[in-house]
């Protein structure tokens, strides 16, 4: 952000956040990211009474007693804009009252500095508008108590000082570093976006080169929402109250609570009514469209993500060959190492030669000189890896033998399942990247051509072997997929609707599995790891960490 672009008026609420943590203020205000947690929702709920604006603040010349709620006021000289929860007064002399959820904190003066400063900014705004204002009140809803905050010289100077540094931070265009080991992060609603401990320890380890870093786990609020998949001919989605119903002709197949949904995927000839679409878009639930065979066509999304800053950085790095290559090397390195781990764990007959060639190729990827050699390395590794794929399959039934990786159309059941799962994964990364503020179409490794969501494909590389490939051979080896799940046509092999459901079930089971993050040492679902990895790319673009650490299974 250019200095001139910083808005003239800073919301007092942002000054509060800045005082709490400068990074919080930057992420919410400059980058436009926000995530609710129980505290923020409760805060709004407790505010609801005062939020209905009532009463008027009389002109400062009039002399009488008054009370007004939810008043907006701006002060161009101080550079502040604020909403006063409540302002009471007698003639010229007024007192702003700020409502806070929770109880009076056990700190000196009975209020946190961030709240005092916010209140003082309101006081300054009132003064600039001609009122006399020497103190404010904070009302703590839970303890039903008022705490008075005198606007003494110290507080006024502190408030102005913080306002100046806030401006400076916004103008610098540099995200402030995360707090170190702070208890504030535990209550922070955006800790899942900020990743304070992850970033701090990565920065440390870039200096020291350590193994696993022990960090606290910040779970995202979205973890308990679920995806909805509908495939078939002529199915219809309808909105009924707070739920979406799935109909097939005259028969209701089932329903889903809208607030529980994280995303919706529609395959083939499934349609939905406009109320369904508008509801999903309003709630920011993305809808993805696929062909019957699982080819990902595209998606619908509500108003797009506000983090323009991230997109600008993404575009500039994508246009920088050297920086792009550095990221691409990491994606390929991660992919090859994960392929190797899959073989080492599941292929009894694998030779040490194969394993060491893969290891060598993974290293070569990291030092490749250009994209052409990197592509060659990736191709070579894929050939070695897929040549062993058959030995991952326990059944030696001829029907289920895998020959070559082939697609469009796949020529055997194994390839059919792989292709289908790659389609599902592209969608998964597409949606994850959108939710984290990226443009999924512009990548660093894959070229942005032919409408390919290049960044989704980039980030997907390291996960292909451990998600799609692993789900595929597990489904065959457990006997969950059998001959009757496939239709063999002259040209190729497709799956029956039942077969597709089995595959989707296997996929969901896999990505909800909790695994230990090899770098951070905590256990989380793969789905969450996808998001963490996307956010780590964002931090590389920010320049906070130097190298993207791919997710490597052990």
């Amino acid at each position, binding site marked *: 952000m250019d200095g001139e672009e910083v808005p003239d008026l800073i919301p007092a609420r942002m000054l509060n956040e800045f005082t709490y943590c400068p990074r919080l203020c930057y992420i919410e205000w400059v980058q436009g990211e926000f995530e*609710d*947690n*129980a505290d923020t*929702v*409760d805060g*709004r*709920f407790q505010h*609801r009474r005062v939020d209905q604006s009532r009463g008027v603040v009389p002109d400062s010349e009039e002399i009488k007693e008054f009370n007004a709620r939810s008043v907006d006021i701006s002060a161009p000289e101080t550079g502040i804009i604020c909403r006063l929860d409540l302002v009471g007064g007698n003639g010229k002399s007024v007192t702003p009252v700020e409502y806070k959820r929770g109880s009076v904190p056990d700190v000196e003066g009975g209020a946190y500095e961030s709240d005092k400063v916010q209140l003082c900014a309101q006081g300054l705004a009132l003064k600039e508008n001609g009122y006399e204002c020497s103190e404010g009140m904070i009302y703590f809803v839970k303890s039903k108590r008022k705490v008075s905050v005198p606007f003494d010289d110290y507080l006024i100077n502190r408030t102005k000082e913080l306002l100046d540094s806030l401006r400076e931070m916004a103008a610098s265009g540099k995200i402030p570093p995360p707090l170190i080991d702070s208890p504030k992060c535990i209550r922070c609603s955006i800790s899942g976006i900020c990743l304070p401990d992850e970033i701090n320890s990565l920065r440390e380890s870039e200096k020291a080169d350590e193994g696993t870093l022990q960090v606290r786990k910040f*779970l*995202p*609020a979205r*973890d*308990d929402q*679920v*995806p*909805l*998949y*509908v*495939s*078939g001919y002529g*199915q219809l989605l309808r909105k009924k*109250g*707070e*739920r979406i119903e*799935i109909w097939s002709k005259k028969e209701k*197949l*089932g329903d*889903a*609570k*809208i*607030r*529980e949904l994280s995303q919706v995927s529609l395959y083939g000839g499934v349609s939905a009514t406009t109320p369904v679409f508008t509801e999903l878009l309003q709630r920011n639930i993305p809808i993805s469209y696929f062909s019957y065979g699982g080819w990902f066509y595209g998606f619908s999304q509500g108003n797009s993500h506000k983090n323009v800053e991230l997109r600008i950085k993404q575009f500039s790095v994508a246009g920088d060959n050297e920086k792009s290559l550095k990221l691409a090397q990491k994606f390929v390195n991660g992919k090859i190492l994960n392929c190797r781990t899959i073989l080492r764990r599941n292929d009894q007959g694998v030779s040490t030669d194969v394993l060491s060639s893969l290891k060598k190729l993974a290293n070569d990827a990291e030092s490749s000189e250009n994209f052409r050699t990197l592509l060659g390395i990736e191709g070579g590794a894929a050939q070695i890896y897929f040549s062993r794929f058959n030995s991952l399959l326990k059944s030696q039934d001829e029907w289920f033998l895998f020959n070559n990786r082939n697609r469009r159309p796949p020529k055997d059941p194994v390839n059919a399942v792989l292709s289908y799962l790659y389609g599902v994964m592209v969608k998964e990364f597409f949606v994850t990247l959108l939710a984290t503020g990226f443009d999924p179409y512009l990548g660093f490794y894959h070229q942005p051509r032919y409408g390919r969501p290049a960044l989704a494909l980039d980030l997907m590389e390291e996960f292909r072997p451990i998600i799609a490939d692993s789900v595929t051979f597990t489904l065959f080896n457990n006997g969950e997929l059998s001959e009757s799940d496939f239709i063999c046509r002259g040209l190729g092999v497709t799956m029956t609707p039942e077969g597709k*459901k089995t595959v*989707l*079930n296997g996929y*969901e089971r896999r990505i*909800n599995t909790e695994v230990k993050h090899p770098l951070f040492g905590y256990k989380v679902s793969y789905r969450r790891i996808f998001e963490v990895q996307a956010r780590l790319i964002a931090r590389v673009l920010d320049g906070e960490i130097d190298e993207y650490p791919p997710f490597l299974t052990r």
Partner: protein
Amino acid sequence: MGRLKVFIVSYDVSDPKRLYRVHKTMKGFGDPIHYSVFRCNLSDKDKIELIAILSEIIKHDEDRIMIIDLGFACGDVDNRIDLIGVHPEENNNQAIIF
């Protein structure tokens, strides 16, 4: 954060219009197990949202709502519930595939 708890929510609402609105809201948060009794899997955040929405709908001097916390969804909740007779299936927070 993030972990779901199981709640039983039951309500008595005297006015049919408000009753309908409460019922509609509840359908978004849980599954009906009896008449005016729902079983809901909620995060801390969901619970506050539910309370906020219901508080706006009901008349606080005429209607009533009871919310019972049965503990974490992955715990031994089901051991604490005995069911006799016909009961609907539970939604267990997994991907919905049709």
